[in-house]
């Protein structure tokens, strides 16, 4: 726990300069501020709300200069005060450190800094001089002392620029930046920002769950910026040339051939890992159990949300970059981890996914029953056997799907498109608790799915080895449980029966554990997931890394891609240095998260409402009969308008450290 010598945050002043170090109480808000990385103490922290000094002898003037230099470099250059004001402040601070040491310059700096804070257009400018102004207001004498001391600054400073949407994104995509490029009219550059993080931009632009939009500060004005739809827009805009952008010439430094990596799985985690390893110059071989690439994105997401040619094209980038993909190779059946080791892969990445279904644990349940199928398997059959290979399927007249997540929504909506006449959705809690995207829930309703909320199956009615119906019971709300949601308990006596040809449990997935033999010795968690070190993503087996759903349990596309990216970085470190190195950006991100509780809810100044672009959709009556993509692309004009809604909530942070 760090001790604050002095500092100001949102106008709250801490001044312990006259106290002895051992008298100063440790501040619980700074639990993680002792060290930046092991053996490297944090001496000062500066951000958009203020600054803290943790050690005596910090050169405040230099800290301010380094911070403002980053601000001046980050200014987007559109509004006057930030573009010009931050530059003038920077050059005057430079003067104070090494030239014109006239203390009166502080007055001039203060006037411009106030002006920048009060009149800048976006969040970056509005917060860029807050720390400096607080220094000037409350600790001016420290600055004056520093000017008089004429010290040569020798401070090590790390700066970091981020925003709520970036911090919310598992892949840390620079969202305001790609939106800026849309505003600038440079769509390829916008896509370039996304492609720095993962290759599946058009895919993510369609199916992402949008942690970024939940964090978007525009919601305080009207509605979140359409971050996802802009991503799809830029990805689609030049999608037919996307493979032309890449070539193996993009790889600057080829690693030696013996440093090859095996990636198991072409899902979002595997593809992302392969992509970043290829860009780092490694030879990458990818093994895929299925005959098509994409993992859960291919088998689990229906065509009407993610047309398969788009996914295939994006996976194609791996091959353009020189990666090899071997299809129809299932780990544990066609080859083993031991085989891979024998083939000389010094590092292996497991991105196996969680493709196994979960049973309902009710009477009459039997995996061999006709008409009983897990949601993930149903989607696999529809997407793969029916759509890709044209194998006919008969799903009967009536179907009951159990669950409230996106897989359940995908099942009910796909069933309608397969011609099932009556599709029921059974969910044990209320609508508010459904984990599926609300857009998905609404779409399912519009298409005519019959919802049974606060309802749960009791028993499967079987006849001649076939599902004939399901007995359901109403649930009622009970006490709050540990997840903060109200628990539900069966309302005895409310049982009723639905006749059905199909019963589809979609209440979760698990890892198919047949990939490993006992002598592979890959450790698992209690939940049946692959156990990894959260910092390095390495399993208990040296050189074997894992990520995505097989590590986290069923999660989202963007989380899996983030894990793939992280694994690539860790594998690169492992193959280069023998161990995973410290990654300053991750550390800064942690520090930023830790300062969030300190932020006082600011004054709100009204901002003109500009409502979010309405995405055109196929008519529910038409679309429910086919697998064509439901959401239509937005126009260039709409994209410009949507991009203009971004408030650029960038904040600049810096730490002064020992080394």
């Amino acid at each position, binding site marked *: 726990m760090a001790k604050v010598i002095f500092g100001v945050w949102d106008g709250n002043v801490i001044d312990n300069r006259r106290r002895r170090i051992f008298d100063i109480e440790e501040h619980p808000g700074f639990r993680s501020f002792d060290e930046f990385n092991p053996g490297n103490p944090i001496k000062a922290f500066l951000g958009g709300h203020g600054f803290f000094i943790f050690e005596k002898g910090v050169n405040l003037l230099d800290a301010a200069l380094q911070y403002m230099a980053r601000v001046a470099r980050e200014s987007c250059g559109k509004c006057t005060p930030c573009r010009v004001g931050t*530059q003038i402040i920077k050059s005057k601070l430079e003067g104070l450190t090494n030239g014109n040491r006239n203390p009166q310059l502080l007055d001039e700096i203060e006037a411009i800094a106030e*002006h920048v804070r009060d009149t800048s257009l976006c969040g970056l400018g509005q917060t860029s001089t807050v720390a400096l102004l607080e220094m000037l207001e409350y600790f001016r004498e420290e600055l004056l002392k520093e000017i008089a001391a004429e010290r040569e600054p020798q401070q090590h400073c790390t700066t970091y620029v981020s925003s709520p949407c970036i911090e919310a994104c598992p892949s840390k995509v620079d969202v305001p930046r790609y939106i800026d490029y849309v505003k600038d009219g440079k769509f390829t550059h916008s*896509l370039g920002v996304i492609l720095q993080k993962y290759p599946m931009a058009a895919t993510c632009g369609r199916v992402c769950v949008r942690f970024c939009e939940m964090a978007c500060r525009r919601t305080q004005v009207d509605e979140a910026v359409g971050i996802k739809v802009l991503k799809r827009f830029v990805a689609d805009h030049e999608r037919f040339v996307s493979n032309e952008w*890449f070539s193996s010439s993009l790889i600057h430094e080829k690693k030696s051939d013996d440093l090859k990596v095996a990636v198991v799985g072409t899902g979002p985690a595997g593809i992302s890992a392969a992509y970043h390893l290829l860009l780092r110059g490694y030879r990458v071989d990818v093994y895929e159990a299925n005959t098509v690439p994409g993992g859960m994105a291919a088998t689990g997401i229906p065509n009407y949300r993610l047309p398969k040619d788009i996914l295939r094209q994006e996976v194609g980038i791996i091959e353009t970059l020189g990666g090899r993909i071997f299809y129809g190779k299932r780990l544990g059946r066609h080859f083993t981890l031991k085989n891979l080791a024998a083939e000389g892969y010094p590092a292996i990445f497991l991105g196996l996914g969680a493709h196994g279904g979960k049973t309902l644990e009710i009477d009459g349940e039997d995996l061999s029953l006709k008409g009983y199928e897990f949601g993930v398997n149903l989607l696999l059959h529809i997407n793969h056997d029916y759509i890709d290979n044209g194998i006919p399927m008969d799903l009967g007249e009536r179907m009951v799907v159990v669950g409230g997540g996106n897989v359940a929504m995908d099942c009910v909506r796909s069933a309608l498109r397969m011609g099932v006449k009556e599709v029921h959705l059974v969910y044990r809690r209320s609508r508010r608790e459904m984990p599926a995207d609300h857009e998905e829930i609404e779409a399912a309703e519009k298409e005519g799915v019959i919802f049974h909320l606060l309802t749960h199956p009791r028993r499967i009615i079987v006849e001649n080895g076939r599902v004939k119906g399901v007995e359901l019971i109403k649930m009622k709300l009970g006490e709050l449980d540990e997840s903060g949601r109200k628990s539900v308990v069966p309302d005895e006596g409310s049982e009723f029966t639905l006749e059905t040809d199909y019963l589809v449990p979609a209440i979760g997935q698990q890892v198919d554990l047949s990939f490993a033999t006992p002598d592979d010795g890959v450790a698992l968690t209690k939940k049946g997931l692959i156990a990894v070190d959260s910092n390095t993503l390495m399993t208990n087996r040296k050189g074997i890394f894992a990520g995505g759903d097989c590590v986290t349990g069923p999660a989202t596309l963007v989380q899996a891609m983030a894990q793939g990216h992280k694994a690539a970085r860790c594998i690169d470190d492992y193959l280069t240095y023998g161990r995973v190195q410290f990654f300053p950006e991750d550390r800064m991100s942690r520090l930023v998260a830790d300062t969030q509780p300190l932020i006082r809810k600011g004054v709100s*100044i009204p901002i003109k409402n500009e409502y979010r672009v309405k995405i055109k959709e196929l008519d529910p009556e038409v679309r429910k009969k086919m697998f064509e993509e439901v959401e239509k692309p937005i126009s260039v004009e709409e994209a410009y308008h949507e991009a203009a809604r971004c408030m650029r909530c960038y904040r600049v942070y810096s730490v002064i450290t020992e080394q």
Partner: protein
Amino acid sequence: MIAYINGKEVEFGTNETILSAAARHGHFIPTLCEMADIAHAPGTCRVCLVDIKRRNDPGHYVVTSCTTPLEEGMEVLTRTPAVRKKQRLQVELLLADHHQNCAVCIRHGNCELQDIAQFVGLQQSRYHYPHFYRQRSRDDSSAAVARDMRKCIRCLRCVTVCREIQGTDVLVITEKGLATEISVRDGLPLGDSDCVSCGQCILVCPVGALAEKDDTETVIDSLYDPNVLTVFQFAPAVRIALGEEFMLPPGTNVEGQIITALKRLGADVVLDTNFTADLVIMEEGTELLKRIRDEDVLPMFTSCCPGWVNFAEKNFPELRPHISTTRSPQQCLGSMAKTYLAEKMRVDPKQMRVISIMPCTAKKEEALRPEFVRSGMADVDVVLTTREFARLLKREGIHLGELEPSRYDDPWMGEYSGAAAIFGTTGGVMEAAIRTVHQVVTGKELERIELSEIRGFDNIREARIDLGEELGEVKVAVAHSLKAARQLVEAIQAGEAVYHFVEVMACPGGCMGGGGQPRSKKAYQASWQARQQAIYGIDRERPIRQSHNNPLIGKIYADFLREPLSHRSHQLLHTHYRDRKRIVRHTMEEIWKEIGERG
């Protein structure tokens, strides 16, 4: 809803900005980047600051009035000392990264940045850092538009006009911080880009960052060269706009004064582009009838607007067979002057310099097209925009308002019809063509000369014209602004719209709103109505209102061209078009390099 500005009650609507309500109620707030008539309020200049106090908050905040909506009970103060001080500092900061060579700037005397400095009462300019602007680019690659980004104040008006009014979307924003500038898509020089040279961006630029390529010096060279015979022509839309540069009311017709001024400048021959507008109608009208009768490629598009021709060649090269092969009136005048007129006057065309005065920047580029240069001799030698012509007159000490009007005296090309006069407005070429085509087909003059259904300012207008028994009804359409043109072309290509004849003018309003016309401060097209009224007024006053009734048109066919679409007119009055579609592919390597350099 009610709020208060400087203590006075104002009514306002939902989501209405302070600036908008203040303007409606007569409270002046200085602004720079904002342009209300194109709904442009990017909030970048940050000058329009005001003090607000919300109903349930004791605090006072300084905000920009262009982006802040009024609220019930809000109290707005526009002139507090703090607000005025901040506005002054803002303009001081704007000047700090602006290349202040005001005395030699092309926008001298018409600069909105200078205005704003005065409005906010700026009395000092403390920050001079030449390295702030020196790194930014200048681009003289285009024959029409000169860019000097050292003067750009990032109001983004040009971007809005290029994107939203024209739909050409050629301008992009590059770099960040002080290096931020408006650039051309794909990093190309403007002259090699998809820019169509319409010059609409110049009309809205508040400073001298965007301007016409100035050619007045070349004209002065010719005027004072005793071995050169100068032949001047000026377009229909020049006479009703030039007066604005000399403080005359918009829409004042100064045709006679222009003739006097040119004579006083020492012009040897003064002609009117209207004469060849009549000639164009004869050729183009005949071409249209031939296409209809031969069931050839239809619809036919007009070809007199070089901005539109550029746009079509660069975006819809497949449309080339649809564009009338008839040259524009400017080019027809050039070729007739250097053949027919030279012959009549018995002078060597090599000694002639044809100098046009045009409402248009794209005409500068049109004159340079290789199609219009015969054996090393251009048909039109120099093109001045209306603004440059005003500059030339001022440089030569001529004040237009003080001149007595004169009349044309050229016996061969000095006459025009009312049909030619309306070429200066959107819909005019179409109306003129119909007057003649109707007579040619039916043998009768159109009873209703003025076609109200294709007049007005709707971006796309259409009409059906009855051409009698032989051809029946023809469908025509008129589009102005390239955004409307694109919309119309796409509808035609999709089979949603069927026409025989389509007029396209690149500039909103047609030539009268051209990129070379006098500009208004703080407004995009302030003089539209007055200019159009003046053009229709000229038509009404003309004794002859149809091109085919112009006696000198009869004479030029009798003496020289024989008949429309004759061999000679094919050589001298028709042209062809090129495929100029550009496909640029960037590699991710390049893109990432640029992104990396930015961050």
